[in-house]
């Protein structure tokens, strides 16, 4: 993560050398935009902290490992849609689930919905796109994730058509 700060810092310095006025204006824009979204952002983080508590790793792995593939895929995509987990947590968890025998098709549904569908980011997305577009985008993303999961299942020989 440090590289983001280094790069941003460098760009900021270069910008400042070229044009002081413009750079100050850029910082003002950054502050105004950040302030605008901050309350929504805090509410969302609070919701995430509660949801991560309600669905800890053990619960997720219990549900994904112990039922039929079909139900597991559905549950996985629901978990993935509701929660928002940073990649550095999600992939190690999936790696563990893989060694526990959870099929690829289930993990694919889980990771793809985790990345693309954000029920919990709805308040933030709505601020920019409006509620209707946010709902449409998330529904589309959900189906893309299901398609990805099914094709993953086919390629790993987990489902037969």
């Amino acid at each position: 993560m440090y590289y983001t700060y280094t790069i941003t810092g460098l760009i900021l310095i270069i910008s400042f050398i070229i044009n002081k006025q413009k750079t100050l204006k850029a910082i003002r824009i950054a502050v105004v935009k950040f302030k605008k979204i901050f309350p929504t952002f805090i509410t969302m983080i609070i919701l995430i902290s509660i949801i991560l508590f309600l669905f800890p790793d053990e619960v997720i792995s219990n549900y994904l490992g112990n039922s039929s593939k079909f139900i597991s895929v559905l549950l996985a995509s629901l978990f993935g849609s509701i929660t928002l987990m940073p990649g550095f947590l999600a992939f190690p968890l999936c790696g563990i689930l893989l060694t526990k025998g959870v099929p690829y098709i289930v993990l694919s549904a889980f990771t793809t919905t985790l990345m693309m569908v954000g029920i919990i980011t709805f308040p933030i997305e709505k601020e920019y796109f409006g509620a209707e577009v946010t709902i449409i985008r998330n529904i589309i993303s959900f189906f893309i994730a299901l398609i990805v999961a099914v094709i993953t299942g086919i390629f790993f020989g987990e489902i037969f058509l």
Partner: protein
Amino acid sequence: MKKNVKLKIAFISIYLLFLIVSFICGYNPGKEIAFNLISFLLEMLKILPCVFILIGLFEVWVKKEVIEKHLGEKSGIKGYVWVILLAGTIAGGLLVAFPVAYSLYNKGAKLSIVFTYIGAAAICRIPMTLYEASFMGVKFTAIRLLVSLPLVIITSILLGEYLTKRNYKMVEGK
């Protein structure tokens, strides 16, 4: 709107009070929630200030004509390539993608490109993809990318066309 703000403040106060009481009484679920809150907040604070400063610089320095030319109505296939590369190199996932996408839109990027950007930011960030492949195997990651990326582009084009027909406009912080 005012009622909404009051509700929010009440909600946050109750939440914080619950966390504090949990710590005093040693109530474990409350402690766990506090831990979740702090770790996620730190993770986001690591990246958000950078993103917003970069957005500010982008708004000040990048001319509207440049974005219109490369990502606007007449941009063609190259526009999608550019925007996917851009999404691939910016860290942070969906949350960061929304404000960036909004700035791109304001500078004249067309809707289908904006939605492609959001989709691509979710699924094909380069550092995350490498990380994923190391846990799940290259085959898994490759299938995911090769299937999802075309679907993201196609659905973005359809959604863009549908919204353009309806004269959809993006408005920040209504």
